[in-house]
């Protein structure tokens, strides 16, 4: 074994953007132009394809990975994570720099690529294996293992077009995971499939790493990154921002996400779902007396104020809720009008929904808030990560004891001895 499994030096990848300027104005107008002056049109189409703006999807990325390390890659959308994996798996050439990988590379950038819908599961296993560079003999050796892992033994001679999407994903992951490459590259494929299978996949990646193989894992799921990777790379704008122990990098990354969320204090401008008949416009805090607060305090009363306005239409049967998510973006506590039987029969065009909590059961820390509302069962607004919630330390138990290290949520309790 050589000392490094992956060596990346000053890797850069430049993309051309806006190459389809020819198509502007629609097909008909293009046809008209093409007929009026065919040669000018042709020349322009041919030259425009070559000269257009460029953007660096990767720039000056350097790192080294020793064998049998599991490395996570995190970053916002468009940070260059997938481009990096595409270059490392030789799907596309870099524009500059150098990368060296020792050993066979198995890559899972999307699940089930190369599956042919008309072929049976069995045939597709062989085809997919061959695409990834496996020999027929190797596939045959591991065939039963693959079937066991994918849990599709019964349907193996059925064309995969009749498979459920879950079965499809399971079979595809099973093939890639049993390829036994020296370097395994995985991009966010675990988002599909049910929870049990996700766990199984994570377990498989873990055991792959234990066998002395190297794993590169891109994920937005901080928990799986924290659980699997010793080391994490944080990418932003095509550059490597941080490289270090997973916990440090993940903390820095989530901090920066929280900052971004709070900077965008105008909730109205955030990405959202829903039909837009109602839009949340603010999320703020008050204490028990109605005085505004910058932050909440553990164990103290707090009022969550959700400001909204409608598009003028009167909304009926409105339910609202918000999720509080921890720094791993995992929902830990939900407040919901429905559970208290307090859905709103009619809503005025604008106003504030106020949720009162007598004693906030959250340990100190930074949280994110997802806001949602429905009218008569139809989603009218949903703003993920609409606001940031800071919780200061406080005396939840009234004993002055620490409130950290006791889980995600605190609960009032008393103890007795019954003998």
């Amino acid at each position: 074994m050589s000392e490094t499994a992956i060596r990346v030096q000053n890797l850069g990848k430049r993309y051309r953007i806006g190459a389809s300027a020819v198509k502007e104005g629609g097909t008909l107008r293009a046809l008209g132009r093409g007929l009026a002056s065919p040669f000018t049109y042709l020349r322009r189409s041919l030259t425009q394809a070559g000269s257009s703006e460029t953007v660096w999807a990767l720039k000056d990325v350097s790192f080294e990975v020793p064998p049998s390390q599991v490395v996570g890659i995190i970053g916002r959308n468009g940070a260059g994570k997938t481009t990096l994996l595409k270059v490392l798996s030789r799907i596309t050439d870099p524009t500059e720099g150098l990368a060296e990988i020792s050993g066979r590379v198995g890559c899972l950038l999307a699940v089930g690529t190369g599956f042919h819908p008309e072929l049976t599961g069995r045939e597709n296993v062989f085809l997919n294996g061959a695409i990834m560079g496996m020999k027929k003999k190797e596939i045959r050796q591991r065939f039963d293992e693959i079937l066991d892992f994918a849990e599709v033994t019964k349907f193996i001679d059925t064309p995969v077009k009749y498979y459920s999407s879950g079965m499809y994903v399971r079979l595809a992951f099973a093939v890639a995971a049993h390829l036994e490459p020296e370097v395994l590259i995985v991009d966010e494929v675990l988002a599909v499939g049910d929870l049990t299978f996700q766990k199984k996949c994570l377990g498989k990646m873990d055991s792959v790493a234990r066998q002395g193989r190297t794993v590169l894992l891109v994920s937005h799921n901080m928990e799986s990154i924290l659980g699997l990777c010793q080391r994490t790379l944080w990418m932003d704008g095509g550059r490597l921002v941080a490289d270090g122990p997973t916990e440090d990098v993940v903390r820095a990354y989530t901090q920066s996400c929280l900052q971004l969320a709070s900077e965008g204090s105008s909730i109205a401008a955030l990405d959202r779902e829903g039909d837009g008949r109602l839009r949340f416009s603010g999320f703020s805090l008050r204490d028990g007396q109605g005085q505004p607060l910058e932050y909440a305090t553990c164990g103290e009363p707090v009022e969550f104020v959700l400001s909204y306005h409608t598009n003028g239409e009167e909304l009926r049967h409105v339910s609202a809720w918000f999720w509080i998510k921890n720094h791993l973006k995992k929902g830990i506590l939900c407040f919901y009008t429905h559970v208290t039987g307090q859905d709103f029969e009619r809503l005025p065009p604008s106003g504030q929904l106020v949720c009162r909590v007598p004693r906030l059961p959250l340990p100190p820390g930074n949280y994110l808030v997802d806001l949602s509302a429905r009218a008569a069962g139809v989603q009218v607004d949903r703003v993920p990560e609409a606001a940031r919630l800071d919780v200061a330390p406080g005396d939840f138990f009234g004993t002055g004891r620490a409130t950290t290290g006791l889980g995600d949520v605190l609960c009032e309790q008393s103890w007795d001895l019954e003998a």
Partner: protein
Amino acid sequence: MDQPSKITRIIPRRGWGSLGLKDVWEFRELLFFLVWREIKGRYRQMALGPLWIVLKPFITMVVMSVVFGRLAKLPSDGVPYPLFNYCALLPWTMFSVSVSKSATSLVSNMGVISKVYFPRLVVPLSSACAGLLDFCFSFLILLCMMLYFGYLPGWQVVFLPVYVLLALMASLALGLCLATAAVKFRDVGYAVDHLLQVAMYITPVVYPSSLVPEPWRQIYLLNPMAVVIEGFRWSLLGKGLAPGVSLYLSAGLVLITLFLGAHLFRRGERNVVDLL
């Protein structure tokens, strides 16, 4: 598993590189699977299934025999017209199917190409091989027809593989160039089928090349497929053009185009994914 691990260097490639034929050889099983996928996937859920492979050229032959043989009374070097025509239709179908399939192969396989690495050359190669396989099936019909019309091939038949190979290389050469271009300009995939139809008439499929007057004949025979088809007739039916200068010229032309096409393809494949 414990063999010294191979180091893969990933660097920007510029100018003329190697053809990476070693890589293609490593992935020969994939080539086999792709051909098989093509064949098997194409005829699933069809009542007649693989029978279509033979039916297509056969029906074309019947139509052409009626139109060009009976109605237009085109000469056929003294061979029964159906046999004369089918003998040319086989290599021509192989050529045109391979060309049009491999020209669009990169685009139609973009799902796989943009997600997994493998030598891209495998893709057009598999299209050409699928054409060859079709050819083998249809060839059985030709044998039956030859028996029916009482033609037995002479010693010339040993040259047949040479012509098959030449047709295959010609289709690959053209297919590689077109596949590279088709990634950037989707028009190519569209235009190819029409151009192939036109090309059929500058190739002696429905008429003998002896119909072409002498000063033009030499130029006419620069078309490698004309040489292939005449060669086919010669080696199977004993009529047509014996191997000679035109064969060497065509072979040279095809080899040069193939070489250029392969390099063009290798240059194109570097940023194929970015353009798809």
